[in-house]
Every structure is written in structure tokens, then in C-alpha cells.
């Protein structure tokens, strides 16, 4: 038997345990908080399902939203859902090409100096509060749309979509650029050595290599668009209707909750239906996330 092996001091072991516990707690707490949010929203929403005047199918598929009518109360959110989806759709169409294009430019084409400047500017763009965006939509964008298209009202689907796109682009750019930066340089070198131009390198090698990260970037951008409230409340015109064109006003699920929850007496059917709208938003987000997850897995399998 040699000399006794050096032992770690007891205090050090105890500290190790405590740190491990704290880290574990912060991990588990995320699950706990999500579960708690679910629970409280459901608790406020669920009683309305047993209300004899409430019809769940009507809630989902009717476009009649008259929550404060004296003799004909209707809680149909279909027009609001379409409002959310259409504004998000317009935002995606505008933001994804610009966002990914900017990410590719910053990561692959521009000089280090421009890169630094652009990154700072884009981070600034991400830091602008949504109410300021809404204000821009309400004043600048609205006037611009009226003068360009000659429509009567400047706060509409196009305006909201545009503002949301401007809000999503920074998210898409910064995450997309990270994804491209994570592609090993050896791929770029190999492609160039094979006689590829920079564009061919981007399209044939970098985009396929970074597709998971780029998809994540797009989805986080979409998430930003679906969940955004204040800016769309101010920029979309707030009319409950199914839009027939880009220049029609719409109202989104989120804006509706924000605008009406303060007016609805706590515990009333109106109040509960607004919480049910929250559940619906949850469901939409969940569908987007699951779809994204499946898409990423599909890409991986291939």
C-alpha cells in the first residue's frame, strides 16, 4: 500500500452537489413555468365550455365576433384567426427572402468592416420596442400606403405585414448568420478548390449544410410574427373581417385580446372567451413548432 490518495475536501464535494442541484432546478423550472402558464390560462378559459350559450364550433369557425352585443352575443374567432395567419403570411413573404439574403451577405460576401457595422445596426433594429414599430405603422407607413395605392385607409393587412416583416428580419438575420458561420471553412475551401464560384458555393454547399439552422431562423421569425401584439394592434386597422386583399383592414387574435381584456368583466363569458383565444394561440404556436420539428427531421433523414 502506497501513500493514501489525495482526497477532495468535503466542502468542495458539498458545493459541487449544491451547484448541481441549482442547475437541475433551473432546468426543471422551465417545464414548471410552461405547465403553470397552461394551467392558469385553461383555468380561466374552461368554464365557458359548459356555458349553454357557448358553441365551440362557432368559436372556431364563425366569423361573427359580437362580444358586447345586447341581444345577439357571438364569439366567433374565425376572422381573427385568418387575420393572424394573413398578417403572418405577408410578413413571412417579405421577411424571409430579405432576412436570409442579408444573412448570406453578412456571412459570406461583405468585408469585415461592413459586417461589424451591419451587425450593430441589425441588433439595434431588434431592440426597437414594438410600440414604436406600431407608431411607425400608424403614421409613416400608413401615409405611404395611402399615397402610393390611393386606398382610403392606410392601416391594413399590408401595413401590419410590413411592420411585422421589419420586426422579424433582425431575428432571421442574426440566427441565420450564426447558422452559416457554423458551417466549417473546410467546406468552403473544398468547394472553391473544385472550381465553384462564391454563389455556387453558397447555393450548392452552404445552404444545404446550414439548412437546419436557417429553418430555425425562419421559424423564430415566424414565431415573432405570430405572437406580436402591440405593433399589429396599431398597424392593421383593427376591423374584424376576413380580408379580400392586401389593403383590407384586419384584426389579429393577439390584438383582440390586448384590446378587449381590459373591458371584459372578470369571470364573464367574454373574459373567458378571450382566455380561450389564448389557448387557440397556444395551439397555433404548437402546430408551427411541431411542423418545424418534423420538417427538420425530414431534412435530416434525407
Amino acid at each position, binding site marked *: 500500500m502506497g501513500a493514501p490518495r489525495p482526497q477532495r475536501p468535503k466542502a468542495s464535494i458539498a458545493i459541487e452537489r449544491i451547484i448541481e442541484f441549482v442547475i437541475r432546478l433551473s432546468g426543471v423550472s422551465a417545464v414548471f413555468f410552461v405547465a403553470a402558464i397552461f394551467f392558469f390560462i385553461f383555468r380561466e378559459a374552461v368554464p365557458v365550455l359548459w356555458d349553454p350559450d357557448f358553441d365551440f364550433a362557432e368559436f372556431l369557425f364563425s366569423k361573427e365576433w359580437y362580444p358586447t352585443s345586447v341581444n345577439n352575443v357571438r364569439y366567433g374567432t374565425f376572422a381573427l384567426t385568418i387575420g393572424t395567419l394573413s398578417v403572418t403570411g405577408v410578413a413571412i413573404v417579405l421577411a424571409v427572402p430579405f432576412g436570409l439574403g442579408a444573412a448570406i451577405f453578412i456571412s459570406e460576401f461583405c468585408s469585415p468592416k461592413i459586417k461589424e457595422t451591419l451587425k450593430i445596426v441589425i441588433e439595434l433594429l431588434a431592440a426597437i420596442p414594438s410600440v414604436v414599430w406600431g407608431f411607425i405603422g400608424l403614421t409613416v407607413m400608413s401615409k405611404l400606403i395611402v399615397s402610393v395605392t390611393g386606398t382610403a385607409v392606410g392601416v391594413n393587412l399590408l401595413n401590419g405585414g410590413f411592420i411585422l416583416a421589419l420586426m422579424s428580419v433582425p431575428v432571421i438575420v442574426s440566427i441565420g448568420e450564426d447558422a452559416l458561420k457554423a458551417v466549417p471553412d*473546410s467546406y*468552403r475551401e473544398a*468547394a472553391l478548390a*473544385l*472550381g*465553384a*464560384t462564391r454563389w455556387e458555393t453558397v447555393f450548392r*454547399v452552404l445552404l*444545404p*449544410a446550414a439548412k437546419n439552422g436557417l429553418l430555425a431562423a425562419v421559424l423564430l421569425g415566424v414565431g415573432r410574427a405570430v405572437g406580436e401584439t402591440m405593433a399589429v394592434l396599431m398597424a392593421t386597422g383593427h376591423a374584424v373581417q376576413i380580408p379580400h386583399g392586401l389593403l383590407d383592414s384586419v384584426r389579429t387574435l393577439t390584438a383582440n385580446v390586448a384590446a378587449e381584456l381590459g373591458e371584459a368583466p372578470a369571470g364573464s363569458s367574454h373574459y373567458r372567451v378571450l382566455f380561450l383565444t389564448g389557448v387557440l394561440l397556444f395551439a397555433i404556436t404548437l402546430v408551427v413548432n411541431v411542423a418545424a420539428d418534423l420538417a427538420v427531421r425530414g431534412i435530416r433523414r434525407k
Partner: protein
Amino acid sequence: MTASRLAIEVSDLRVAYGTKEVLHGISFDVKENEIFAIIGPAQSGKTSLLRCLNRTIDQVAEASVTGTVKIDGLDVRRVKDVFALRRKVGMVAPLPVGLPLTIFDNVAFAPRCAGMKARGELEAIVERCLRQAALWDEVKDRLGSLGTALSGGQQQRLTIARALSHDPEILCLDEFSIAIDPVTTMRIEDVLKELQSRVTIILVTNLVQQARRLADRTMFLWNGDIVEVGSTDVVFSDNPADRRTYGYVNGIFG
């Protein structure tokens, strides 16, 4: 001795990264259809030299290059279509880099960049190159699976197939055996000997015995200078021109 044409002429080539010069004005020639080995310890400038041949050194922002490199008598720095130049010089990197594409797309990459679209032609090239790289039999049933999913040795042969796909006149291999086992190394060495009739091969290697087995001529590069360049028989003999060469190839040199 037959007077063969020169595939590569390098004269007074200097490469510096910032203020640090890594090649101090070297000059040598490579003959057509020979296997030309470059040996030397790490940091002797071997990879920088290869990068000058296909001008991928252009991508290194702080690199400065003087002197001339001629391929087929043409100064590479005067070449207008650098992409065509790079297709003329096949390059195999030290660590196998399967691009994140299918095996087929990996090999068809360069022909496609050169503008080839016909499926039949591409298929023929893919099969020929994979056969030449001794990989065809192992992957012929799964050309659609990812190149990055192959084993290290297979990926290295895939990069060789890829380097052959654009019909290069010169094939540069930069320590190709660094990540693969001796059996696969031997198979690739056999492949190189077969290819010699069609292409000029530049073999950068840390394995001096590999140079001895394969090369017609060997160049010993040390700290950015040529110590000796000559017929492999002489370089590896007991009486090379420079005593340092004897020390290095026999492993008694620091």
C-alpha cells in the same frame, strides 16, 4: 532520359501571411506525368505552396504572394478564369471533407459547376471517378446517401474521386493518408500509380516512406526553403546532396 514537358514551373515564389514569410523564394519544376513528392516537417510551407497552385491562397485575406507559378506555361496569376484553373488542378485536402451532399452530388459537383447538366453524362463521370478512386464497389448501391455519412477512409477516397471529376491535369494530394488506415492508404497508393499515366501528381506527405514508394522525384522543404530536390533514388540514398536530407528521411533530424 526523355525530355518530358514541364507541367509546373515555380520560380522565386514567396508567400507571406502578414509580416511572416513562410516561403522564401523557392524555384522548382514538375514534369508532366511524374509523381512529385514534397516532404518536410510541419510549418515548412507545403500547404501554402499547394494553395498557390490553384490560387485558393486568394481567399486568405492577409496573404501576399510574389514570384511566378506557371502551369502549362501560363502564369496562374494572369489567368482570367480562376475557376477553370481550379478545375485543371485537383486538390485533395488533409482531412477528408465530404460535402454535406449525396455521394453522387459530391462527385458531380465540379462538372455541374462547369455547366454540365445531362444526367447520363454525369452518371458516367461519377461511376468512372468512383472506380478510379477504388470506392465504386462500396458505394454503388447507395449513391443517394450522404457523403458525410461515409467512414473516414471512404470519405478520403470520395474526395479523390471528386478531385478527378473535373478531369484535372494536375492532382495535388495534401497528406491524404493522415486520417486513414494503412490498408486504405495502400489501395489509394495503387490508384495513384495507375493515374500517373494520365495526370501529374503532387504528393505532399509526412510519411517519408510513402514518398519513397511512389515518387519519381522528391523535394525536401524545410522552413520555407528547398533543402534538396532530386530523383527519389538519390534523395533516399545514403548520399543525398544535403546531409540534412539524410537526417530527415532517416528520422535522426530534429
